[in-house]
């Protein structure tokens, strides 16, 4: 009861409520615009959050996350281009249904299933995050090392790219985290005599570079692309027959999405693909999939929004990001002096339940905004890239500069923008780099501390049951994509 009261705290504060409304609207806009999305948007807005209190800042970021994940569906259905990678599966049936003149019905189903999936995942978050945090009390340095390794091996299965390329990108991310003074011995590593590098490379220049700047370069190669936009009269609530047809799919996908979200590093993209394929597998009419199946839309959308709450579970309970956007949220927590982990649950429950409540309200808000404003949001896609992207560049530069007031951060951002462009061009996902960068210090720190505890004996890792379990899970995570191919 007390926790429920804490969850409703954002509703009782005008300031928090305004932040929630702004975050949800901003998230929707980001989700609608192809190439942006909650990860890039979150990274761009992170410097602004410095003026806010920690709870307000994280509420802003989480509402962007929830609404941005849904916003991608609007573009996926109306212009056959996913606003966010997590909405890729929505295109498969959303656009064909819109072409049949049922854009309103498609968007209605996407809105309802997204909101349901999101709310379902918040319930999962409220129950499972404290349990996981409780379990984490048993963790020592070796267990955290094994957990971080498990998180990194999960990178092998993210997206539809090559698992090995994902692992290379993850290792590259960890390598970036080693730049600067070694935190244990204060010895310079990869600084090449540049004083500004002794503090290491900041998260924001890398994220903004890899997401926003590399996307700007990608957009420069796609100028001849013409989008065919389907007209939308109004969003329609699904009919009774639609509900009858899809309620099992929505429920199943919400469960799948929440579970996938809880797994470290996995996020909405994987969840929606699995949610979609499971919807097809269980459907009475699988032949309709790809031609405008309402079940396909429900399956993909419930799953990707369910992953948002799920992904917050390891982020808050263990400090291991559940997805790329939660990596940004994790950075937000750290720069505001909040250390995620089991102690956070014991010491600041009002902070955590405030976040849970904000996510719940944000899911309700985007349902309302999406239902009544999808037509308006869809118009945002009409802003030409030649106007939009130069503006995003100006925001990226000022945002990156603002954190440390260092011009070198801008050069780092541009460098990673170019690196990110070529990574994407040659089939490397940029998400593992971010996860690797976030987990890098944890991996190295816990490894070195464990070796001190074990007196240099590496085999001692396998004598710790929890650590051994994570290593076995890591082995399965590595083997799974290879077995799947066979």
């Amino acid at each position, binding site marked *: 009861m007390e926790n429920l009261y804490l969850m409703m705290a954002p509703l009782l504060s005008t300031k928090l409520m305004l932040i929630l409304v702004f975050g949800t609207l901003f998230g929707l806009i980001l989700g609608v615009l192809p190439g942006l999305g909650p990860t890039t948007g979150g990274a761009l807005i992170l410097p602004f959050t410095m003026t806010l209190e920690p709870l307000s800042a994280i509420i802003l970021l989480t509402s962007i996350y929830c609404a941005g994940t849904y916003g991608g569906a609007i573009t996926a259905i109306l212009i056959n281009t996913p606003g966010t990678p997590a909405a890729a599966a929505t295109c498969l049936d959303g656009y064909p249904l819109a072409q049949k003149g049922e854009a309103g019905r498609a968007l209605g189903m996407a809105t309802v299933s997204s909101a349901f999936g999101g709310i379902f995942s918040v319930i999962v978050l409220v129950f499972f995050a404290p349990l996981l945090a409780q379990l984490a009390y048993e963790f020592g340095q070796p267990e955290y090392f094994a957990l971080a390794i498990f998180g990194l091996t999960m990178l092998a299965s993210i997206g539809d790219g090559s698992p090995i390329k994902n692992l290379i990108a993850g290792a590259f991310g960890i390598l970036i985290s*080693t730049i600067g003074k070694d935190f244990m*011995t204060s010895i310079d590593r990869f600084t090449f005599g540049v004083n500004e590098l002794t503090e290491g490379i900041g998260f924001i220049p890398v994220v903004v570079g890899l997401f926003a700047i590399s996307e700007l370069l990608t957009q420069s*190669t796609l100028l001849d692309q013409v989008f065919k936009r389907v007209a939308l009269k109004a969003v329609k609530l699904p009919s009774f027959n639609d509900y009858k047809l899809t309620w099992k799919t929505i429920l199943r996908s919400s469960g799948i999405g929440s579970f996938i979200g809880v797994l470290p590093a996995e996020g909405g993209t994987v969840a929606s693909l699995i949610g979609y394929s499971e919807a097809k597998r269980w459907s009475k009419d699988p032949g309709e999939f790809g031609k405008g199946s309402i079940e396909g839309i429900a399956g993909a959308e419930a799953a990707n929004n369910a992953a948002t709450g799920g992904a917050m579970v390891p982020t808050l309970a263990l400090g291991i990001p559940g997805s790329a956007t939660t990596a940004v949220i994790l950075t937000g927590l750290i720069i505001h002096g909040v250390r995620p982990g089991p102690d956070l649950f014991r010491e600041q429950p009002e902070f955590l339940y405030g976040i849970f409540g904000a996510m719940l309200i944000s899911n309700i808000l985007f349902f309302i905004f999406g239902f009544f404003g999808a037509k308006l949001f869809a118009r945002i896609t009409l802003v030409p890239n*030649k*106007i939009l992207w130069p503006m995003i560049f100006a925001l990226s530069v*000022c945002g990156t*500069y603002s954190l440390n007031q260092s*011009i070198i951060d*801008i050069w780092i951002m541009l460098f990673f923008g170019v690196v990110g462009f070529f990574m994407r061009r040659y089939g490397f996902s940029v998400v593992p780099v971010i996860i690797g960068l976030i987990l890098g210090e944890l991996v190295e720190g816990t490894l070195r501390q464990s*070796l001190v505890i074990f007196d240099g004996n590496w085999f001692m890792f396998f004598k710790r049951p929890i650590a051994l379990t994570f290593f076995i899970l890591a082995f399965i995570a590595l083997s799974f994509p290879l077995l799947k191919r066979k």
Partner: protein
Amino acid sequence: MKDVQNNQRADEGSLPFFFKSSFKVSFVIIIFSLTLLFTTFFFDTVPPILNRGIQPATFPKGLLIIIISLTLIVYFLSLKKPWKIEKILPSTFFKTLYSFILFIIIAETLDFFLAISTLSLLISYSWGEKRILYLLLVSIIFPAIVFIFFETILGLRFPPGIITNIYYN
């Protein structure tokens, strides 16, 4: 070369291996990693009494060896796959990239705000925007709003330059 470009899938034997993108990508990653690996041998070491667990260079060395090994696996796996020709990058990409270089030069020598303005103008223009009003919007009005917002709300002090000095004075 012409035949190769006209086909969706290139003939395996039509070009030497070093023209294939899988080789070029693997080559760049391996050379980059080897260079970094080489530099790790020049990291300072700590005496055993201060050394906690492993030397500071050991972890990056291990990572680089993993990257090189995985890259070799990717390369050898790519040999079995049919080779697809990469789409040639359009001129707008290179114009955008050159404007980054110009941005760095202007920001370092003249002014930070001027650099943002110039880059926004160049990108917008080279991407096809010719209307003066919109060019003004992206190159002056929007950067000025962002600049003033960051300066007043976040209390940011931008680096000195010909325009920022006028603003601050």
